[in-house]
C-alpha cells in the first residue's frame, strides 16, 4: 500500500499550485480554476485520512465539499459573466476602479 504521507505530499503540492495560481495569474478564469484546485487538494487529504482511519465519514465529507465547490462555481461564473458584460475583459488588472 502506498503510505499515507505520499498522498499528503501530493495534496500539499496541489494546494501549493492552487495558491500560487491565485496569487500569480491575472486571468480570472485561471484564478478560479486554481481555487477549485485548492478545494480538490483538501478532498484528496480528506480521502487519504479517511482511508487511513477506515472511517466512512471522511468520504462523505468529500461529497459535501464537491457540492459546495459546484455551488461556488455557479455563483462565480455568474459573477464573471456579469463583469464581462460590463467591461469586455476577464483580466484582473482591468478591475481597478478602486485601489486594491
Amino acid at each position, binding site marked *: 500500500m502506498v503510505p499515507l504521507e505520499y498522498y*499528503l505530499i501530493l*495534496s500539499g503540492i496541489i*494546494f501549493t499550485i*492552487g*495558491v500560487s495560481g*491565485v496569487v500569480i495569474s491575472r486571468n*480570472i478564469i485561471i*484564478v*478560479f480554476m486554481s*481555487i477549485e484546485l*485548492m*478545494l480538490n*487538494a*483538501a*478532498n484528496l*487529504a*480528506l480521502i*487519504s*485520512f*479517511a482511508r*487511513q*482511519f*477506515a*472511517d*466512512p*465519514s*471522511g468520504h462523505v*465529507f468529500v461529497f*459535501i*465539499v464537491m457540492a*459546495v465547490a459546484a*455551488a*461556488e462555481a455557479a*455563483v*462565480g461564473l*455568474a*459573477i*464573471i459573466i*456579469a*463583469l464581462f458584460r*460590463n*467591461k469586455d475583459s476577464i483580466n484582473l488588472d482591468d*478591475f*481597478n*476602479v*478602486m*485601489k*486594491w
Partner: protein
Amino acid sequence: MQESVKTILENFSLNIDLVTLMPEIIICGMALLTMILEPFLKGDSRKVVMHLTWLSIVAALISIYSIWTSQPNLQSLQFADAYRIDSYSLLFKAVFLIGSLLTVFISSNFLKFKNVPDGEFYSLILFATFGMMNMASAGDLIVLFIGLEIMSLCLYVLAGILRRSVYANEASLKYFLMGAFASGFLMFGIAFIYGATGTTSIVDVIQSSEILSNTYLIIGAAMVMIGLGFKVGAVPFHMWIPDVYTGSITNVTAFMSAGPKAAAFAAFFQVFIVALRPLQSEIEVVLWILSALTMTLGNILAITQNDVKRMLAYSSISHAGYVLIALVAFTPAATTAGLYYLLCYTVMNIGAFTVLIMVEARENSDTNFSSFAGMGRRYPFLGILLTIFMISLAGFPPTAGFMGKFLVFKSAIDTGSTSLIVLVVLAVVNSLVSVYYYLRVVVVMFMVEPELEYRPINFATGIIAALVISMGGTLLLGIYPQIFAFFLNTALI
C-alpha cells in the same frame, strides 16, 4: 469498512427537537417562500416580500426569546451531534437577526432609489442569515463550513447586486475571489484537523485522546486560522474589506459589516476556544499578533480616508481587532464579552450606516465627507443621532461602544497576564486615535458650510424604524447593561 458503516448506521440518532430549531425553520422557510412568491408579484404588491421578511425575522427573534425563557440551561446536540443549540449560540443568532432586521428596514427605500430589483434581495438576506445561524450552532466542522458557504455565496451576489455598476462588479469579484480562496484554506485546514484527530466534531476534537500527529493538528489550525482570518478581516488578511465595502451598495455594506462579521467570530470562538484547546498556548501568541496588527493598521488607514463609507470599512477592521482580544484572553468571561461587543457593534454600526444611507439617497449625492457638510444645521436631530453613533464607535460612555470595550478589556485584564495587559493598553491608545476620524464626520456636519444649498433628506418609515431601534440599542446597551445581565451569565464552554 463495511462493518463500520453498519455500526454508524446503528448508532445513528438524529435526535431532532423542532422547537429549538424554530428560528432556523422560520428563516429558511421564509427565504424559500419569498423566492417563490417574488416572480408572481407586480408593482406595489412587491412590498409584501419586504413585509414578510421583517415579520419572519421578528418571529424568529420571538421564538429565540421563548426558547431562552422556557429552557434556561439548554444544551442540546441534534442531527447526530452535528448541530449544537445552547444559550450561547442562541444569543449569537439573536445578534445576526437584529443585524438582518435593521438591514431590511434600511433597504426598502434605498433599493428603490438605486433601481435594484428587490425580490431576490430579501431572499438572499434571509439565506445569508440562515447560513450564519448554522455557523453559530455548528457542532461539527463540516456544518460550520457549509454554513459559512451558504452565507458567503449569498454575500457574493449581494455585493454585486447593483449589476450595472462597475464598482459593484468589482466588489463582487474581489469578494468572491478572496472568499473562495479563504474557503480553500479553511477546508484544507479542516481536512488536516480530521487527519490529526480522526473526527470533525467540534466537541470530540478536544476529547480525542489519541492525537495522531501534532504536526497535522498545527497545520490544520494554521490553515483554519488563515481561512477564518480572511472572513473576519484580520490584518494581514484584510485587503479585500475596504474595496468590497466601498463598492457594494451601502445597505449591503451595513449588512456585511454586522452579521457576517459576527458569524465569522462565532466560528472563531467555536474552533479555537472549544475545538483546538490543546493548542491554546500557540494559538494565543498568533492571535495576540493578529489582534495588535488588526486594530493598529485599521485605525491608521482609517485616518487617511476621504470617504465615510471607506472610513467605516477600515473602522470595521479595527473593531475586529478589539474583538480578537477576547479570543486571546481565552476565558469564559471573555467569550461573553466578545459576544456583547459584537451586539453593540452591530447596533451602532448599522445606526451609523443608516444615517449614511439617508445622506446618500439624495440627488447627486455620494458618501464623501463633503456630503455631510451642513447636515447638522439643517437637521439638528439627525446630526445629534449621528454624533451619538460616532461617539459610540469611538468608545465613549454612556454608549454601547464603551460598555462593549469595557467588558472585553476587563475580561482580558482579569486573566492577569502581562502580554494581555500590553494588548489592552494598545487597544486603549487605538481607541483614542480613532476619535479623530469618527469626530471628523461630526465636525464636518456641524461646522462646515455646504457648497450649495443643502438638499433635503427623505425620511422613510423603514429608515425611521431602523434609527429608533439602533439608537435605543446603543443607549440601552451602554446605560443599562444590567437588563442584559442574562447575557453576562452565558458563556461558551
